[in-house]
């Protein structure tokens, strides 16, 4: 493990002649190049987007509470499902992980900031702009995007509203933000590690973000291409996806999912890193199998490029192709299983306590595994013919994304919040948040497996009567889950007001790593002199 030899970090005159006082007000936040400030901006933005996307989910669940069309028109319902997906993927999960990367990576590797601090500022500030464009399109005549976050052609080209142009611009901007962020992460990790921090001494969170960043620069440009082709097909007379002009709608799916599959790994690898940081702390044992965790993460990332067509098993591909994608998809469960077993092995015979970050981390391990198992079911071609486009798929990806990615983000916030603020958060509220979320999230998503297997399709505003009872319970779980997040909101506001008991540098007994060897709250500038890592 790493230890500091120089543990006193003073903002001394030996450093450059910069101001010793921290800027304040709007200008501070607009112009900041400080990784901690930018991390905070990303995290608050992601939380606001989470609540916004969540509100759309509430509209969806309100309509689906009973059979029949009571609350919204079908076209508006489709806008809700589409924008809910876009916001959660591009506005909540990805920016949250980027915020955590910004806050933590420099501190974990003993660097004073990210490699490209001014580009960092831009990477963040174009995001609210992009989402303003996307959200405002909902208020235009014709409505906002209503073709699903996967925007298949020809629904998105021939049969969509003119607001599709705004959707395309928003996606371009979000993509640019992610690409710039990824470049920043890679350069920081490659070039700014403290002396003595070799590759295999880096914390797992840094490793998983490094690999995620490579996935981002590889596939976000492909999304940019796909979205540009949709724009030109719709407005400039090209025929990428139009059979009349010699194009092919199925080609859209290939191009989109070539981006789309690595994208879902982009949304889970940082989660794996977070869990790998938290479990050893509260088990008071080093992570089991550090090297295999690194190799497993790299294997998952590489494999993610050759499985895209498992989203397309029903498009009429030749059997040989379907088999290839089936076997490659099943293969991914091997390195993933290695990671799950290693987390369990870390806890084995550990000296465990169950603070709130650990509660979320353990919940992640159990529930993400459930999501992974339904994914394995979906990988089997002949049964996927039954599950495809049903609520079984919706159950699968919500388990891996909500009880997976989102729970890991909450775990991370609870784990590192005392380091950021210098105060312990309100533990009572945190426990209520955890337990209410845990119960409600399972009431919300577990029954979706059953209605999916029973044949309920996805993306529909009304359903056959036999699905009514289960949908009622799903909606109740949804409302409860939504309300539970308000507990988190109250807790975060109290934390930002610096309420709570002061904490030590280490905060959690058992926490190890460079970020736990600096004061809490972390000073505005840290590691201006690099530590020597043993």
């Amino acid at each position: 493990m790493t230890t500091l030899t120089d543990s006193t970090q003073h903002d001394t005159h030996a450093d450059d002649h910069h101001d010793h006082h921290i800027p304040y007000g709007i200008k501070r936040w607009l112009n900041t190049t400080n990784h901690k400030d930018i991390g905070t901006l990303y995290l608050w933005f992601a939380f606001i987007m989470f609540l916004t996307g969540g509100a759309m989910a509430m509209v969806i669940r309100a309509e689906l509470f009973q059979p029949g069309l009571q609350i919204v028109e079908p076209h508006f319902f489709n806008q809700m499902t589409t924008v809910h997906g876009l916001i959660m993927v591009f506005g909540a999960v990805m920016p949250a992980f980027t915020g955590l990367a910004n806050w933590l990576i420099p501190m974990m590797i003993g660097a004073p900031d990210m490699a490209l601090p001014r580009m960092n500022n831009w990477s963040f500030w174009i995001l609210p702009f992009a989402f303003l464009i996307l959200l405002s399109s909902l208020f235009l005549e014709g409505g906002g995007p209503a073709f699903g976050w996967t925007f298949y052609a020809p629904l998105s080209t021939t049969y969509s509203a003119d607001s599709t142009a705004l959707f395309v611009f928003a996606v371009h901007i979000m993509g640019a933000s992610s690409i710039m962020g990824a470049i920043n992460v890679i350069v920081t990790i490659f070039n700014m590690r403290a002396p003595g921090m070799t590759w295999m001494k880096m914390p797992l969170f840094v490793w998983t973000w490094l690999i995620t960043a490579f996935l981002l620069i590889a596939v976000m440009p492909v999304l940019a291409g796909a979205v540009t082709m949709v724009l030109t097909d719709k407005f400039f007379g090209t025929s990428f996806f139009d059979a009349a002009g010699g194009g092919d709608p199925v080609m859209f799916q290939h191009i989109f999912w070539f981006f789309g599959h690595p994208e879902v790994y982009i949304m889970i690898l940082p989660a794996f890193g977070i869990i790998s940081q938290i479990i050893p702390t509260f088990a008071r044992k080093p992570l089991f199998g550090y090297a295999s965790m690194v190799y497993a993460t790299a294997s998952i990332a590489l494999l993610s490029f050759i499985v895209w067509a498992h989203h397309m098993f029903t498009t009429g591909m030749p059997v040989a192709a379907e088999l290839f994608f089936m076997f490659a998809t099943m293969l991914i469960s091997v390195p993933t299983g290695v990671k799950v077993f290693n987390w369990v092995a870390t806890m084995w015979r550990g000296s465990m306590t169950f603070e709130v970050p650990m509660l979320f981390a353990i919940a992640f391990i159990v529930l993400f595994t459930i999501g992974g198992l339904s994914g394995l079911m979906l990988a089997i071609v002949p049964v996927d013919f039954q599950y495809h486009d049903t609520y079984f798929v919706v159950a699968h990806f919500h388990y891996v994304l909500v009880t997976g990615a989102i729970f890991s983000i909450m775990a991370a916030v609870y784990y590192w919040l005392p380091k950021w603020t210098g105060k312990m958060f309100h533990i009572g509220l945190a426990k209520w948040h955890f337990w209410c979320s845990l119960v409600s999230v399972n009431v919300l998503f577990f029954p979706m497996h059953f209605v999916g297997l029973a044949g309920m399709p996805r993306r529909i505003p009304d359903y056959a009567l036999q699905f009514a009872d289960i949908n009622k319970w799903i909606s109740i779980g949804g409302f409860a889950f939504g309300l539970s997040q308000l507990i988190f909101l109250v807790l975060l506001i109290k934390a930002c007001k610096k309420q709570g008991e002061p904490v030590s540098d280490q905060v959690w007994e058992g926490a190890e790593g460079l970020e736990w060897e600096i004061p809490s709250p972390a000073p505005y500038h840290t590691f201006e002199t690099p530590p020597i890592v043993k």
Partner: protein
Amino acid sequence: MSANPNQTKNNKLVLKLAAIVVGMFGFGFALVPLYDVLCDALGINGKPSDTASVYEAVEIDESRLITVDFITRINTGMPWEFKSETRQVKVHPGQLNEVNFYVKNPTNTAIVGQAVPSISPGPAALYMNKTECFCFEQQTLQAGEELLMPMQFYVDPQLPEEITYFTLQYTLYNVTASADVVAMN
């Protein structure tokens, strides 16, 4: 502010990463022709050739009889009548056949149509050779005009043993909006 000692190293890496980004953007667009190339090479996707074949020195295989079904379809926004004269033919591989397709434009404006073929099962498409087909170019019908369009083909004797039956579907699209002005007159 003192210069960042890492600056040059950083800039070099940024350039390399930016090159990857640009490369992958190009790759996304390269997927478009790549898709067609792979579909052609692997013989999947059910798209027969869009150029005329030449019928010469082809041996007729009397031992096999292949059943070919014809399906016609008009796309949304295409008001023509479109049907094949024959629903099904049974042919020997290597034998040259002709099938006629009837189209009529019942509206009172000239319309340009494009027929796009698709063959099922997909692998059979590689072995479908058309020496003459209305699908090779756009067809213009004036208001009220009707036409009998010939399609000549032969099945390649190399057709795999296990394929004894395939279906050729034509979908007719209305391409008046993007057609050449010359083609309209």
